[in-house]
């Protein structure tokens, strides 16, 4: 009892003291008077910067492209971006393209898509490329159904590995680097020559590292031979059909093929091809050229 009594006696002291002195956070009277002299002005909101997103009512796909190319919806110069750009067109999704770089992407790589939102205050989360197919299936009025062919995965691996590796070598490690990779990927990023040099070095060593994961040496003849076999296999599986795997409408596979064949056939890519070995491999396959031209004239007008 006695200790409780003591505590009860002492507790009002420290609680009441700050109340009487106004506390340490209270504004002293002279300063308060000084600040009361100033009127409170609310400025009007600033205008949005010119580069701020203008069209929130459309889906926006962020891709590698030149500023003019993005405005007009021209094909991207990066295979991964072009693949999804083409696929969205196949699915009749209305979207705008914006030129961007890897640093802008939440996942660290392009492309990604910012879905439109009616309500500006809560914007939808960005869709990375890995989830674009599922997103398209929900967003599109007429989604493309992928053919359930058992060979689908196998032929896709030809594109994703053999042709991709040959592409990596051809664009980043061969003589094409100065003619294609430099004007497209390096020069737009910076004007500082040292920064440009660093980026060029990083790009080349990244491509080299990627290729060295799969073989101890990078042998262009072997890479091109593999790519040639892959193109031959793709041409023969296409046969005389209009689209791959006898589909009625072009699908993701056609988009993946087009992403490489279009860029390889496009003679004005960057400053033009210098090492044309990979390009010649495609040009020899008449079926692939026809397939590419069909998509280009139908969907990229």
């Amino acid at each position, binding site marked *: 009892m006695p200790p409780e009594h003591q505590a009860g006696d002492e507790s009002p002291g420290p609680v009441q003291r700050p109340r009487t002195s106004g506390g340490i956070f209270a504004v002293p009277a002279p300063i308060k008077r000084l600040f009361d002299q100033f009127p409170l002005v609310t400025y009007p909101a600033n205008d949005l910067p010119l580069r701020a997103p203008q069209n929130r009512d459309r889906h926006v796909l962020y891709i590698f492209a030149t500023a003019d190319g993005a405005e007009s919806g021209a094909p991207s110069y990066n295979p991964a971006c072009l693949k999804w750009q083409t696929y969205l067109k196949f699915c009749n999704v209305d979207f705008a393209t914006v030129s961007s770089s890897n640093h802008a992407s939440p996942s660290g790589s392009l492309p990604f898509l910012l879905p439109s939102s009616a309500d500006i205050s809560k914007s939808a989360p960005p869709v990375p490329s890995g989830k674009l197919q599922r997103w398209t299936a929900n967003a599109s009025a007429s989604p493309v159904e992928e053919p359930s062919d058992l060979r689908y995965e*196998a032929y896709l691996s030809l594109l994703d590995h053999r042709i991709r590796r040959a592409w990596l070598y051809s664009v980043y490690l061969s003589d094409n680097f100065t003619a294609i990779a430099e004007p497209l990927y390096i020069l737009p990023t910076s004007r500082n020559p040292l920064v440009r040099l660093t980026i060029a070095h990083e790009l080349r060593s990244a491509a080299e590292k990627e290729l060295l994961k799969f073989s101890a040496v990078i042998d262009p003849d072997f890479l091109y031979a593999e790519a040639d076999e892959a193109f031959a296999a793709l041409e023969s*599986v296409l046969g005389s059909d209009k689209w791959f795997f006898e589909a009625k409408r072009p699908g993701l596979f056609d988009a993946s093929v087009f992403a490489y064949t279009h860029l390889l056939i496009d003679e004005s890519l960057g400053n033009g091809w210098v090492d044309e070995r990979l390009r010649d491999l495609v040009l020899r396959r008449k079926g692939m050229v026809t397939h590419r031209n069909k998509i280009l004239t139908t969907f990229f007008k």
Partner: protein
Amino acid sequence: MVLELHVWGPAFGLPSIDADCIAAVAYFHHTVPPPQWILVADIQTSVGPQYECPFLIDGNARISGFSAIISYLRKHPSRPYDIDYGLSQEQQTDRTAFTSFIQTTANPLIDLSLYVSSDNYSSATSSAYTAILPWYANYTIPPARRDLARARTAHLGLSSLDVHAARQDGSQSGSGSLGSEFEGAKRASGLPTDSRLTNPKMLSMGRGKGVQGLLSSPIYAARFRLDALTNDLLEPLSDLLGRKKYLLREDRASSLDCLAFAYLALMFYPPVPQAWLREVMTTKYPRITKYMGRMREELLSSEVVSAADVWFISSHNGTDAEVERARHQRGMHLPWRPKSDQTRLSTSVFAIRETISNLPLIGSVLQSNALIHTSVSKRTRKPTSALPSPLFINVVFTFSTALIAAFSGMAIHHRNSPRQGDLIFRALRPSLGFEGFEAGNILSVLAGPYARMSTNGV
């Protein structure tokens, strides 16, 4: 001319530890008659990886890689050995596609199972390498191959397999009480422990964490991903096999069968503790498992290759007849032969080279360029780069290095012989300005402007 096939040494009862090498051995064993080819257990150095195993030596020609070897044999000048003879056009394109499919889908699985998973690596893979590598290479080659496997599977986000599970468990259970610390110390010093901590994984599984805790422990969380990856490979293969005897046709094996067998065998046979690949194969794809057993019988005569026997043959110094006799005594069907150039000198040179090339800094300097440049004959124009030229960069680099070296030299010199007495500024007459310019006397030149300024001020 005898075809000489070089492969990684045998492991897990299979003729090689590498899938492409197994495929090449299976192809040769099935296609080329015995006296016309020999098999050499080789190791691939990290210095100058000019030829990657498997590689084929035929006279002066050297071909490396499974698909390159096959296409070379198909067009072999003396007698074409073509297992794929008679495939239709469609079957040939399917062969190309599925070859690439198996190589790219099965490789990550084997990487994860044999190299990335620390449990499996420490208990199965590293000991398998010990049996086929000379002692000095054990410190360099297996870790290098493991790093490569990690890099190849990094994009799958399954690095959670790569934890030292045993150590983690030990530290968790050892953090509790004094008694468990004592047990931990006993275990660390190699004494037998008598508590349940001797098998912490069995007992602490899911304990006190509930089902969710169990599922979120690394191996179980990864298990869902792993099963999905395995299905990605086995489902299309199972569809392709269907009710057929072989993957592509009914009556005869093809090169695709050799490759499929090699990868499936490395997924199935290694005695690993985390055997999720084998579990999925036996439970969900019995047809594939049966097919693999059949292929082993047909392509390799079901021979269980012993690493010790092969090691004995490859380090044999006797004549061909002696090697042949030793091979028959051990009942080895595959035509193993010793490495041709095995002198003590070359071995020690190799060991030293291997060691030096794995030292940090020095190794990166010595690393030979892995990029083969081929000249393009029809080059029409040389593109001009907008980037600064290498010459300019080298000049700038040399200049700045020289500058830094000069300054540090000055600093060291100054530190070794600090100035005695007071600092005195002297006004140098312009005509005498450069007479005092010596390496050690450079400070007086630096002091010059200040001195001149002070005289002007006065």
